[in-house]
């Protein structure tokens, strides 16, 4: 698609979509280098933890009376989506500002910084939907799903990932060094969240004094929603609460990110 230089401003969605086209052109060529981290890794965890470790687990109250594979399959999808979303919003965003400088190049055209941010978030969402769908499909022959609610789990994964991507993008937009703080994010936020936010075991096993850490983590809300849509037992009111938390996190992150994008790209 070409935009003629008439001095007109690109409509809001069209500008963002132009960015998505750019990402897609890159992805078509390099998708193979991402196959492992986006598609294969969650499957390996499903095999090792769901089937291998799960063979040692007795179905009981902790797993809601379900076998361990069924218990963790939805949560593994959401946790992989969270990790992908954070990964895609750290170094790639910093690179757009600092190393490849494609954000600077694009904002020299009629595309605005807000549209650059929108394009990034849309692209992350599409990637999460794609990798979630691939995981969900390959997990079928391993008997990981109880019903077609698995399709909704893919959507929950994308929503949770997006809620994490927005604030991390804001952080990346205010990073001017080589991104050392991202290592801290991975080690002190993402990794503990993966272990303790109810992906592998119910958070009721965490001492009460520390359980609030799980409650404020977006992954726990995503896990609850994901289990709810495929394993059942989700009441409307808690579901709305989880969605509201994720929406609030996304909104705060997106508003901050938009402000920082304008600050850094408009001279």
């Amino acid at each position, binding site marked *: 698609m070409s935009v003629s230089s008439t001095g007109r401003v690109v409509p809001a969605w069209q500008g963002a979509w132009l960015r998505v086209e750019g990402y897609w052109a890159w992805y078509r060529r*390099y998708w193979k*280098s*991402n196959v*492992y*981290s986006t598609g*294969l*890794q969650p499957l*390996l*965890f499903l*095999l*090792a*933890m769901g089937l*291998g*470790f799960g*063979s*040692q*687990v*007795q179905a*009981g109250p*902790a*797993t809601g009376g379900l076998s*361990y594979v069924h218990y963790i399959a939805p949560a593994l999808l959401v946790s992989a989506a969270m990790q992908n979303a954070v990964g895609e919003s750290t170094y790639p965003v910093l690179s757009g500002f600092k190393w490849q400088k494609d954000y600077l190049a694009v904002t020299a055209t009629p595309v605005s910084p807000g549209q650059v941010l929108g394009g990034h978030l849309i692209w992350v969402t599409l990637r999460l939907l794609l990798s979630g769908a691939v995981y969900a499909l390959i997990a079928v022959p391993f008997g990981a799903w109880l019903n077609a609610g698995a399709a909704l789990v893919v959507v929950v994964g994308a929503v949770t990932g997006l809620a994490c991507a927005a604030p991390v993008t804001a952080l990346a937009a205010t990073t001017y060094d080589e991104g050392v703080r991202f*290592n*801290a994010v991975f*080690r*002190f936020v993402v*990794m*503990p969240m993966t*272990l*303790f936010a109810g992906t*592998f*075991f119910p958070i009721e*096993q*965490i*001492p009460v004094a520390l359980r609030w850490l799980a409650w404020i983590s977006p992954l726990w809300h995503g896990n609850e929603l994901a289990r709810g849509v495929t394993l059942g037992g989700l009441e409307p009111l808690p579901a709305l609460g989880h969605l509201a938390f994720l929406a609030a996190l996304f909104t705060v992150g997106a508003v901050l990110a938009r402000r920082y994008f304008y600050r850094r790209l408009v001279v």
Partner: protein
Amino acid sequence: MTTLTETPRRGVLLRILPPGLYAGRASKLVERSILAYSRMWLVFASGVLEPLLYLVAFQIGFGRLVGDATGPDGQPMSYVAFVAPALLASSAMNGAVFDSTFNVFFKFRYAKTYDAMLATPIGPLDIAIGEISWAVLRGGLYSVAFFAVMAAMGLVTSPWALLLIPVALLIALAFAAIGMACATFLRSTSQFDYIQLAVVPMFLFSTTFYPLSVYPGPLQVVVQCSPLYHGIQLMREFAVGALHPGMIGHVAYLVALAILGIWGAARRLSGLLLR
């Protein structure tokens, strides 16, 4: 004009290797790494923290989902005590591989640190030995911290368990050497996925989280080929003090891997850097 009155007697390695490959200055590289990392203590602290979080997660989470596990001596043991030695082996592997691939690749391809070093009286084998020693030292530091927490949690029951630390160093050495040899083949950062592709399955499937008997027969053989499996077995057996002659085989496998890696890394580095 000065005359050399006396050449100091050199070590056997210096006499048998081709001149220029090794200058006996590997310790200078370790010194450099210590200096470079002295300002990055946070990286170290977080490296210590990660396996500890895993240990806590197994204590309060995973361990309560399963009953007792069967130890290497056939005695029942708590699941946390079953997993802890395996986590120590895996973290030794992860730390060593991380240090010897990502960091070596960066210094090799982008920072050109090694080109600069070779302009001084330092040879490729010094670089290989120096960088591998640093990776092992770093892995050793992490394993001492991990062992201390294991002891504090009451998971150390046998005096033989003190040998977990040298075993962790051996695992770190073997994987650092192989990792460094592999790092010289990498061309771009997107190929780091290949390293993950080797390390993560090894971490997940080398009987880290559940016994070998979970696998069907033919798969058991495949798992037993993994070097991490031998490291984990060695750790588990020392942790409870169940000694047997088969442990020599585990050690031999890891030593062979280390020798192969050091030889390969030095060969590749001299081929690539001394053109």
